[in-house]
């Protein structure tokens, strides 16, 4: 066993060396930081890290903080609708563009360009367009529709949908690009076969094509999930968490406590909770998608 392992290492020695930078980054930057922040979540750290131990006190405080609970709930709502709408819209766009439309590259560019803009820009510009005093509502009223109401950014019950609107605008082009790429890779034979059988196109897409695009779908959902879990800039630019705490999100809670409120202990407790949640949700996805059948590398 030992000799065999030595031989294995010797044969692949350069590969081990080549992966050292990655190992260093994972161990020091990622695992090290995670461990460090988990450690701090059990301390009473305020503005600067402290080395004491206060048990689960920060977690108790955290789940007793209504703003944190609101943030979690908001993230769930935003993530659900964001992923759903981005996915459906991205698929529809890709399928429609794939029908040999004219000016295909123009459409593709139009749907993809928001992804090139930063989240800050997405938040600022939609905040402006949805602002009742300046944007669509004011314009419609200017045309004489005095009863027209579009007050999402200022309405506590609708503000999350304003945020979702901006993020969908930003992200659905990415899904479109990925799905479109997938569609281009599908064998044309399928269409011939199904047409002979008289199966309607929508059913072919739903029950044959989409399942074939599973890797694309998973990858796009993973990329979108990364951005939604970290979502901070767009909310700050658009609503700064308001009205009240109606559009607060966990990343903003962490950021505010880390800096504005000088409460590192609570912030790291919050980020630990996020980390565990991500682990629980994402680990099975990542495992099944990227490792289960990676027979060649392992």
């Amino acid at each position, binding site marked *: 066993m030992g000799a065999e392992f030595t031989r294995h290492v010797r044969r692949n020695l350069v590969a081990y060396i080549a992966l050292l930078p990655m190992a260093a980054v994972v161990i020091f930057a990622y695992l090290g930081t995670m461990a460090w922040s988990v450690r701090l979540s059990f301390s009473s750290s*305020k*503005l*600067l890290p402290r080395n004491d131990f206060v048990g689960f006190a920060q977690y108790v405080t955290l789940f*007793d*903080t*209504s*703003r944190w609970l609101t943030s979690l709930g908001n993230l769930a709502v935003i993530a659900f609708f964001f992923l759903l709408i981005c996915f459906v819209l991205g698929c529809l766009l890709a399928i429609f563009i794939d029908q040999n439309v004219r000016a295909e590259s123009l459409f593709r560019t139009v749907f993809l360009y928001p992804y090139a803009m930063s989240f800050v820009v997405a938040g600022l510009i939609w*905040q402006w367009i949805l*602002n*009742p*005093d300046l944007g669509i509502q004011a314009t419609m009223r200017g045309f004489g529709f005095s009863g027209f109401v579009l*007050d999402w*950014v*200022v*309405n*506590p019950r609708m503000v999350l949908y304003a945020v979702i609107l901006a993020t969908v605008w930003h992200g659905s082009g990415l899904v479109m690009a990925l799905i479109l790429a997938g569609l281009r890779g599908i064998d044309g034979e399928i269409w011939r076969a199904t047409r002979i059988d008289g199966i309607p196109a929508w059913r072919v897409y739903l029950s044959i094509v989409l399942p074939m695009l599973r890797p694309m779908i998973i990858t796009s959902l993973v990329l979108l999930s990364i951005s939604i879990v970290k979502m901070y800039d767009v909310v700050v630019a658009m*609503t*700064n*968490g*308001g*009205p*009240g*705490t*109606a559009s607060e999100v966990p990343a903003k809670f962490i950021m*505010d*406590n880390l*800096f*504005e*409120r*000088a*409460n590192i202990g*609570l912030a790291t407790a919050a980020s630990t909770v996020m980390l565990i949640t991500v682990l629980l949700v994402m680990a099975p996805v990542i495992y099944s998608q990227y490792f289960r059948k990676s027979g060649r590398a392992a």
Partner: protein
Amino acid sequence: MIAMKQMVAVSAIALAAATGIARAEEPLNAEVIHWWTSGGESAAIAVFADAFNAAGGKWVDNAVAGGSAARSAAINRIIGGDPSTAALFNTSRQYHEIIGEGLLNDIDAVASKNDWDKVLPAPIANAVKVDGKYYAAPVNIHMPLWIWYSVAALDKAGIDKPPETMEQFLADLDKLKAAGIIPLALGGQRWQENSLFSAVLTNVGGAKLWTSVYGDKDEAAIRSPEFRKVIETFVSLKPYVDQASQGRNWNDATALLIKDEAGFQVMGDWAKGEFKQANKEIGKDYGCIPGLRPDAPYVLGGDVFVFPKTDDAEQVKAQHLLVEIMTDPDVQVKFNNLKGSIPIRSDVDVSSLDACAQLGMKIMSDPARQVPDASQMMEEFVYGSVQDIVTELWNTPMTVDQAIDRFEKALKG
């Protein structure tokens, strides 16, 4: 052309540096991190920069928009071992922990030379003095809870003189509403809602309730009928704010007064800058009310500069020169006139200040009316929770009892 000149200047400096000519009279470099990026603020900090440069220093400006971004940049630089010469903070507890960690230089030498114990108002001195040593140079006193009004709007609503009591104020709000004017201009942002609440607390509850709730965190005071009345009054103000207030910037709210579309606004004295820019005159176009009771407390907020730890003698020299210049009486008057605040010392010539600032100076001369800003009486995270409660109270149908419970929990920890 300008670029050309700059290039010449740069190459001259480079040449001088390379040849070592300028070595003997190299100016004292001082890098200052601050968040004063807007027009009026820039003009104000330019007063410091110019005075510092005139005194033989070289001001290196490092502006980062947004208070918390600028402060965390400063703290990261301190932790990273590459601190700036000076950094801006609010007159609060924001910097007390870095003092405790020994990361700031004290400025006792300059303070005792200039007799700060005598010239600074007590709440300000308390905020910058830790364990008997001065660690921060206060540069201004902002009173964050002035009540501003539009003369024309009040006229239109048939209000002949500005309110002097809370009852009159509430009655005036009704009159404004009846006249179709926005009674209360508010920007629906956490800190502005919190300012409004603080104004209700100081004007309904007075100095005593302010310090016993926020300072002593006294349970009896939190559960007292007076504090309950404060919350009820605050909630009763909701109908006087227009629908579009949500997310509005404070200066856009001030603009409503400038355009005579709104009657009152609770805002710090920096609002004056907006009125001045719009060429409005105190007394004729707009007015300021310091409080709604004869003994209304004057809340002392403001800004301070701190000086990160360094052993470099040149840097320490630069730090001390900065302190001297920033607190110099003449510089103080000039700076505060542009910033909208009032000078930190009582021994300055007030004649060049505007009427509102002079009124503020007069009220402040009575120590009984000086109270510290809420941020000086509690740690930042406590104050953060308090602001969360206030914004939820304002934006959700929270009951008074729930609010009181949450205040108690947040303040008592």
